[in-house]
């Protein structure tokens, strides 16, 4: 299976003189897989996602996205920690954002937005304003917006971090179902190890200064309690309050 995302020797830092927060990272993500990246805060996992999305330039190394050449899609769809909806657009127009500028007609744009909203079970909410939705619903609109561009890769940056426990649990189930239905390669950043093990086929733990891959676990069939504990210890060791 071909790697959809291939990172080689990637280093990340902020500012010119500061030491790198993350150094010499090699990572290959296979098509259709669900990879979770866990690590303590400040380890650079969100920035890593932004590097993959081209929103932050890496200091060294290469990032290759093997996206297919389809003119009517974007290579990746990004879901942020906050829903980040445009408050002046109704839900359906928010979902269409990434389709604008692609060779996609108006009717097809609307159709694809509807399909994406259906996938997150919000097909009835297309004409609402963002402020009329709950936090969980807004986050689902954010997911629909990322899916509407029919990306090869779904990039998710702690998408459920700001939600209450019950909503989070519900959305984790939804995301698992969506991944099963769409088969999108997913790179998912979280600091919640249970969430990572529940959702992903593979969990990477980043830790250290500068951060490196400290653990690389196959979690297709879950993982042992011992592994979870080991990762949790890795997380706790680096946590600063």
């Amino acid at each position: 299976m071909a790697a959809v995302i291939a990172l080689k020797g990637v280093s990340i830092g902020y500012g010119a003189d500061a030491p790198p927060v993350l150094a010499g990272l090699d990572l290959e993500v296979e098509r259709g897989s669900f990879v979770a990246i866990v690590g303590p805060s400040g380890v650079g996992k969100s920035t890593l996602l932004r590097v993959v999305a081209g929103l932050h330039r890496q200091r060294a190394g290469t990032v290759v996205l093997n996206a297919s050449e389809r003119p009517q899609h974007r290579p990746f769809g990004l879901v942020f920690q906050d829903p980040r909806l445009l408050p002046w657009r109704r839900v359906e127009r928010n979902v269409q954002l990434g389709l604008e500028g692609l060779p996609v007609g108006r009717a097809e744009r609307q159709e694809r937005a509807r399909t994406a909203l259906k996938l997150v079970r919000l097909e009835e909410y297309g004409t609402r304003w963002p402020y009329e939705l709950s936090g969980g619903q807004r986050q689902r609109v954010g997911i629909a917006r990322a899916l509407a561009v029919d990306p090869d890769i779904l990039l998710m940056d702690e998408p459920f971090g700001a939600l209450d426990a019950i909503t989070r649990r519900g959305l984790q189930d939804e995301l698992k179902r969506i991944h099963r239905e769409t088969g999108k390669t997913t790179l998912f950043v979280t600091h919640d190890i249970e969430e990572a093990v529940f959702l992903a086929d593979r969990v990477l733990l980043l830790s250290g200064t500068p951060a490196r891959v400290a653990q690389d676990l196959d979690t297709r069939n879950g993982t042992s309690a011992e592994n979870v504990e080991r990762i949790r210890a890795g997380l706790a060791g680096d946590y600063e309050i």
Partner: protein
Amino acid sequence: MSKRTAALLSAAGVIVFLLAWEGLGRSGIVPQRLLPSPSAVPATFIAEIKNGQWQAMVLASLSHYLSGLALGSFLGIAVGTAAALWPRFNAFQAGIVRMLRPIPAIAWIPFAIIWFGVSEASAAFLIALTVFWINYFAAYAAVASVDKDLIELGHAFGQGALIPRLFKIILPGALPGIFAGLRAGLGQGWMTVVAAELFGIPGVGMRMMEASGLLATHIVVLYMITIAVLYGISDFLFVRVQSRVLAWQR
């Protein structure tokens, strides 16, 4: 206090004010010449309508007002947005702004008259100048404070180039602030209309100047009320439009 009580109290206040004013005139404490009584205004209004002055002057003022307002608002928003968008342009224009900004628009009246004569263009120029600065600062602040996260969102979803970034993210995001500037300009614009016309440019202000020269103070009062009403109407209409355009705000 309920909305209705508040409205009733406000109406009562206006009535008491008018009655006191009327009483002051009738009692002879203040001579009619110095303070025309409000009851003289309706008759004056009819007379001014009959001789066609009122319509002509209001139309002339409106025409200065609207052209000055349109020009000043557009340029103010454009330059303010550009300054907030491009640091290099911002630095380039900062000194010029600091130099010109403290000069009140009416201080430009001599030059307006030298450049454009005692003409419509003169009045429009002065109004545009007033309105320019208000909109310039409002647009600058509004554009500069657009959520950076939304701009990043635009980049992530292929709307990072200048045109989509400007029209899909920045300007809609800045719109509430830009509208606040437009509204403030709407009010300041009326003040400049009158100030400019006091120098003889045909319009409401000029008519007031003429009337005061003849001590026809009831005519002066009529036009003062006219200005208040015209401003009230334009502000009311603006707020209607604004609440439609900004319906997405809670």
